[in-house]
């Protein structure tokens, strides 16, 4: 059982403060959904937790199993089990998905340990079958010229291969067609049930995803912090009423 603790986190980009006192604890197996208006700091939060060098943590802390990870580089955080499915994944021309993932898997092995290529491909193909991704996909350059939905599927494939302890999924549902959404949700749900179920932070704008991946907790983010938390019914309420009532409630408080 692992635990990711975000404690009163403040994040600035340049001198602009974006995340303003965000606190949340996620345990293995839990799914937390975060919803909130555009520009409220959801992606900033996710990237800051993942260790983006441009995002300055001005105060607060992020702890993985009790130990702060703020001094670690992004790659070190990744290797200790943190995964970010990007809202806008980068394109890496000339680097095939197979080679990229292979390098990522290799990076997790102990020094001097060589990757078993046969086992790697077997596992890769199994995951691809599960996510109904065509085998030809692996020889394409990472995200290069991918459609929006393909990029998101590629993120999920990477997540499945890297088996993180905690996954921050930033609008993984946007751009997915209805079938792909179901496939991705099935993939995540399969992980959820397993013995090494990750803790998941789902950033989304739509109830649609939460129909498939039913969250344990739903949080509303507003102006850089969580202003309201509840169970899955909160998402339904947001879907029906929009954010105005939260704004009012928050402004009144």
């Amino acid at each position, binding site marked *: 059982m692992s635990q990711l603790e975000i404690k009163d986190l403040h994040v600035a980009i340049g001198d602009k403060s974006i995340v303003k006192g965000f606190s949340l604890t996620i345990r293995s197996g839990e799914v937390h959904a975060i919803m909130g208006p555009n520009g409220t700091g959801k992606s900033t939060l996710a*990237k800051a937790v*993942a*260790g*983006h*060098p*441009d995002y300055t943590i001005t105060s607060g802390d992020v702890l993985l199993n009790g130990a702060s990870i703020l001094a670690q*580089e*992004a*790659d070190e955080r*990744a*290797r200790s089990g943190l*995964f*970010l499915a*990007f809202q806008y*994944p*980068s*394109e*890496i*021309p*000339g*680097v095939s998905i197979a*080679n*990229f*993932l292979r*390098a*990522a898997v290799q*990076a*997790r092995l102990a020094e001097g340990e060589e990757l078993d290529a046969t086992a790697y491909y077997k596992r890769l193909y199994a995951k691809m079958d599960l996510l109904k991704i065509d085998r030809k996909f692996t020889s394409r*350059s990472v995200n290069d010229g991918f459609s929006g939905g393909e990029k998101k599927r590629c993120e999920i494939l*990477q997540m499945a291969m*890297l088996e993180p302890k905690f996954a921050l999924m930033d609008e993984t549902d946007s751009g997915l067609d209805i079938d792909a959404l179901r496939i991705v949700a099935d993939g995540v749900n399969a992980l959820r049930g397993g013995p090494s179920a990750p803790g998941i932070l789902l950033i989304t704008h739509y109830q649609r995803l939460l129909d498939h991946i039913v969250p344990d907790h739903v949080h509303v983010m507003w102006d850089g912090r969580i202003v309201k938390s509840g169970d899955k019914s909160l998402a339904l309420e947001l879907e029906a009423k929009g954010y105005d009532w939260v704004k009012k409630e928050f402004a009144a408080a």
Partner: protein
Amino acid sequence: MSALTYTPPPAPAADSATENPVVGIDQTKGDFSYNMDYEFDAGTGLSEKTVRYISSVKKEAPWILEFRLNALKKFLSMPMPTHWATKDLENINFDKIRYYLSQGQKPKRTWDEVPDDIKKTFERLGIPEQERKFLSGVEAQFDSEAAYSNIKELVAKQGVIFANSTEALREHPEIFRKFFGKVIPTGDNKFSALNSAVFSGGSFIYVPKGVKVAQPLQAYFRINAENFGQFERTLIIADEGSEVVYMEGCTAPKFSTSTLHSAVVELVALKGAKIQYITVQNWANNVFNLVTKRGVAHEEAEIKWIDCNIGSRLTMKYPGVVLKGRKARGEVLSIALANDGQHQDTGAKMIHAADETTSNIIAKSISVGQGRSTYRGVVHIPKHLKGCKNNTECDALLINSNSRTDTYPAITVRGDQNATQHEASVSKVNEEMIFYMQQRGLTEGQAMSLAVNGFINDLARQFPMEYSVELKRLIDLEMEGSVG
């Protein structure tokens, strides 16, 4: 203008200041050398005496000594090409360089006979165990003289002559004299003149009519002594309908002062012959690497240069092909990586001199940190020719904002019966891309080297397997070292 006349590269503005790009750079990478006992040492500095010494140690024929002395005069009288090239050339101190060193060994025949220290060098060069067997085909240039050879015997069965320059000029003048110094005349440029005066080592190859050499012929060059210049001379003649692949690798250990590598490589592909010349070099970043490479392709012949330049303080190299016969083909595929403090000034020259000749240039450069890449190209198609084609592609990759890249493609195509195509692109490895890869667990260095390998991937795929593997390894090493 005769077909063999050199066309100087276009003249960009000269640098304003004399640069010393190695200041403040970690130079420990590749930091190794071995103590060697040199039996013959021409001492430092260049004079007629030096040239005579080299020639006498090599027991050369009088015509070669004359060739050398004439070249020395040219070298001394020619100005530095700093009107178009970097002023950093002025930092070469010709008086401090050793022009000839030799252990006086006879070239070795088998692996067992190779001295341990040379084996140790191969080991330090990181050539993996599986590739050791590959070494049995290596003609290693250990300082000035060939230290190892074995493939010679094998190819001799096909009538192929594969010898070092001294041996070849002594034993087969009837074959080599005709072309020696003809593709690249002594006075082509200051450094070809220098090479012509003091050359030693290098490979001379003759492939008889119709012979297809099955395995690539190889050489490894290395500078081992401080202040030593290495001036190998290579001449490959592929007779009608023959085919040969030649590969060279270069590396140099790190010394505190600059060293000079100035080679001349001449290729002659007679009617219907094919020559492929592959270079992967990784010089220490205080080496001036000033190399002249040119080939002449006769009717329906093909010359292909694959040229990968990593390291060095300054590399100036523009492999060229003179397309002399109808339907001749020329190709240059080049990759240059300029890390902090390095300047890769590379390019290609295609001189079309017959109808229906085609040329292809693909140049990729990578500039890291303060690294600087320059592309200089010359494509010349005179008006009276028909059906000539050229394709030129230059792609530059910049890693961080300080990097600098310049492109000087000079394409002179006259007449309307010829076609050229030119594309250039500049791309950047941005921070988001590096963060994305780091988020998957790769270190910053691994991320950068993956990005670089991705950038050159489509080109590297065309290289022979073992060379693309070697290239990848060198890039990994270079990129690992460039972060921190």
